[in-house]
């Protein structure tokens, strides 16, 4: 077994577990909670391995002052990374304590002992807590309406601020004309630095009112390229790119392949129900930040770069926000708060984004295109396969680019533009190319990912990254080939797939969905399958749709294999949530941009899935307690999108290759 990354930087039991007072174990994970239930799962792992009741074990919110540096909470890796480290730390503690209590060891010799990588961890059959449903630690407090989120922090002397953003992604402030605005006594200060404008007030509503008035009177330049989404296809096809061959096998000439098809998706938005929020306070030259960030350490590093100060002068502590599905505006608003708080030393300032800013200024999931080509031999076997995916990068996360990627930094007088987004390394699943290498057995294949170097609008990580469209394209194309041969799509897949756990989820979903049954006219079933990142969870989805004037998804059946299951209810919640979110992206969502201005900045212009559109979802976990635990948050994203497109094709015999599968795009596909 390789050493978990998390342990290299934090090698002692005391780095992970805190036995500071009797009957209390502090779980010092570097991963953060944002509604996915990770702290609940990590608590199960620790309590089980320590042979303690859950009630004694308490995850502590990540902080740069004492938590291990586990980078970002991203990529469905928390159970693998933090879970493995905590399991080893807990097992080491159990063995080391022997017949003594953990707390007596704490007071005598202490817990600064190295974690034993070869320690005897519990066998699957000995688990008492792992593998059983556990209630979420954090949910009841939220249900009762008790203070639960960073938005709810109320301390004496707290100030509130709102930021006035430019009208387009490129405009710069010419004249604020703040003298034209009457300021109520609640207004503390207006801050202007370059094109960064913020209003500090005693209350949030007053700050928002002044921002609204300033938006009316201020003058901004309109220079720039004025990017519009109607030019998206052209942009994706022609923008300069950095090309990476991700996989090459056998001999292939993509130009000579017999079947070809192209797929696309537009920019998509995180669209969390709560807007991003942060709190900051400066005392002399020290900065404290409370943030819903996915990575307290990377945020600290980027803020240190932006303020040109040493990281040791900044403390970042995690406080929960609303749902997080990737790199949203959480880090940006933390920097906003830090910038604003600098003007009122010794005071805490809470900054929240408006809904319009949330839907306009958070990084977007990149627009992407995929070109596929294949050759099928006389026996109906795919012999040659070529896949080229293009789009902007999937990470402009803090401290990963050549200069700070915090939004306001690009608006400050001494700041700099945010460089084009990069991609996570291929060892972490890549970004643009994530899941572009098919799991199927094709004799000859060439897989290329082209990350665009020109970024007209900021993009970054959104749940599953490139896997959403790459799986959508692969699985759509497979159905096109299978149906062209007159073969059942599931049989066709199984004929090209030797991976045993992949075959198992496909056969399971066929079984629970009643695959192949006769359906009424206008209805269809479709399948989608992938192993997330080709090295994480296996997931197969069957969608059943009815198409009249629009796509109605009636039912989703899901089979998933995440290896050892920590919290079955948590896995089902994540898988179903991922499936419904993917359904929303795939059938409804697209960011609209007109001349550099995001116009889809409210819920009417950026509609997401409604309650009445939600299908019945049925999930079956294939449990493999003897295998390593894998993350569940992103596994269903690609397969669900593909299953819906394939079901639509079966229902109305129209192949829709451009997302979203709206009425307009279906009509366009009929006419093409």
């Amino acid at each position, binding site marked *: 077994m390789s050493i978990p990354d998390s342990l290299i930087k934090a090698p002692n039991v005391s780095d992970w577990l805190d036995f500071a007072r009797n009957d209390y174990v502090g779980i010092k994970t570097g991963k953060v909670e944002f509604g996915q239930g990770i702290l609940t799962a990590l608590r199960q792992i620790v309590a089980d391995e320590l042979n303690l009741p859950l009630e004694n074990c308490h995850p502590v919110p990540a902080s740069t002052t004492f938590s291990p540096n586990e980078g970002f909470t991203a990529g469905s890796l928390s159970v693998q990374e933090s879970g493995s480290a905590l399991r080893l730390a807990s097992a080491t503690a159990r063995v080391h304590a022997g017949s003594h209590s953990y707390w007596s060891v704490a007071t005598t010799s202490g817990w600064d002992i190295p974690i034993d990588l070869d320690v005897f961890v519990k066998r699957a059959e000995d688990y008492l807590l792992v593998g059983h449903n556990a209630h979420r630690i954090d949910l009841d407090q939220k249900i009762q*309406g008790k203070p639960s989120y960073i938005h709810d922090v109320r301390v004496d002397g707290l100030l509130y601020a709102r930021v006035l953003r430019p009208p387009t992604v490129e405009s710069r402030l010419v004249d604020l004309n703040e003298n034209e605005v009457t300021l109520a006594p609640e207004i503390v200060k207006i801050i202007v630095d370059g094109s960064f404008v913020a209003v500090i007030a005693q209350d949030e509503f007053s700050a928002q009112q002044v921002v609204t008035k300033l938006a009316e009177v201020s003058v901004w330049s309109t220079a720039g390229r004025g990017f519009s989404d109607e030019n998206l296809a052209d942009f994706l096809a022609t923008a300069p790119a950095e090309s990476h061959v991700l996989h090459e096998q056998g001999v292939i000439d993509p130009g000579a392949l017999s079947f070809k098809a192209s797929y696309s998706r537009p920019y998509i938005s995180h669209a969390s129900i*709560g807007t991003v929020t942060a709190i900051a306070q400066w005392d002399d030259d020290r900065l404290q930040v409370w943030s819903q960030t996915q990575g307290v350490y990377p945020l600290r590093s980027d803020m240190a770069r932006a303020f040109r100060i040493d990281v040791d002068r900044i403390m970042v502590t995690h406080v*929960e926000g609303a749902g997080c599905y990737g790199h949203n505006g959480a880090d940006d608003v933390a920097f906003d708060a830090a910038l604003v708080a600098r003007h009122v030393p010794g005071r805490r300032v809470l900054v929240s984004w408006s*809904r319009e800013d949330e839907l306009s200024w958070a990084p977007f999931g990149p627009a992407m295109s995929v070109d596929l080509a294949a050759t099928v031999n006389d026996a109906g076997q795919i012999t040659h396969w070529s896949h080229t995916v293009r789009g902007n990068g999937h990470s402009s996360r803090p401290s990963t680019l050549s200069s700070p990627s915090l939004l306001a930094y690009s608006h400050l007088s001494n700041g700099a533009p945010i460089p084009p987004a990069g991609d996570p390394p291929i060892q972490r699943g890549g970004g643009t190319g994530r899941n572009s290498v098919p799991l199927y057995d094709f004799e000859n294949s060439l897989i290329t990912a082209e990350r665009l170097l020109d970024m007209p609008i900021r993009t970054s990580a959104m749940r599953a990254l490139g896997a959403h469209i790459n799986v959508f394209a692969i699985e759509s194309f497979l159905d096109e080939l299978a149906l062209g041969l007159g073969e059942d799509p599931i049989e066709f897949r199984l004929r090209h797939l030797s991976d045993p756990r992949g075959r198992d989820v496909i056969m399971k979903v066929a079984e629970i969905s009643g695959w192949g049954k006769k359906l009424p006219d206008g209805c269809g079933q479709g399948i989608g399958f992938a192993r997330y990142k080709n090295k994480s969870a296996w997931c197969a989805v069957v969608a059943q749709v009815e198409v009249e004037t629009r796509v109605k998804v009636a039912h989703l059946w899901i089979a998933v294999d995440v290896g050892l299951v920590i919290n079955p209810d948590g896995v089902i919640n994540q898988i179903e*949530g991922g499936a419904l*979110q993917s359904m929303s992206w795939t059938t409804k969502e697209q960011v609209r941009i007109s001349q550099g201005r995001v116009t889809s900045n409210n819920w009417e212009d950026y509609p997401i*899935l409604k*309650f009445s559109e939600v299908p019945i979802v049925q999930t079956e976990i294939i449990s493999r307690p003897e295998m390593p635990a894998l993350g569940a948050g992103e596994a269903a994203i690609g397969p669900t999108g593909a299953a819906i497109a394939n079901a639509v094709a079966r229902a109305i015999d129209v192949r829709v290759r451009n997302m979203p599968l709206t009425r307009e795009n279906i009509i366009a596909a009929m006419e093409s």
Partner: protein
Amino acid sequence: MTQYSLNINGDYFTVDCQNEAPLLWVLRDQLQLTGTRFGCGTGLCGACTVLLNGAPVYSCDTPMWSVGDKVIQTIENQMNPTLRKVKACVSSNQAGQCGFCLSGIMMRATAMIDSGVELTRESVAENLDGNLCRCGAHNRIIDAVLQAGS
């Protein structure tokens, strides 16, 4: 600035605020009843839903002058037996992920149950179309509401 006397969750509060100030911000910032969430400010997401005389309203879109002497109920209310039951069912079904949408959803569901209309999967879902959930916990929420209303 105007002084308002408010009946919230069975208690009386006095606040000074602008007539145009939305009820949401009075609840959150002045009364520290932060269980009611800000989501959009335009009455489109339902995160801020509270009950006025038992009927659901978007508190972000409800100016203080319009509240009058109406009885206000928020998610913090411990006295409403229907709301208590809804909360218990949402908890037992683990019907949430980030939970940010839940306050508003539970308030609307409470009003629906108390109205006595027939509860089916379809009627509950349609009733909740005024509330958005992004995490995909919809089906669990519908199940919890059906259970609370049974």
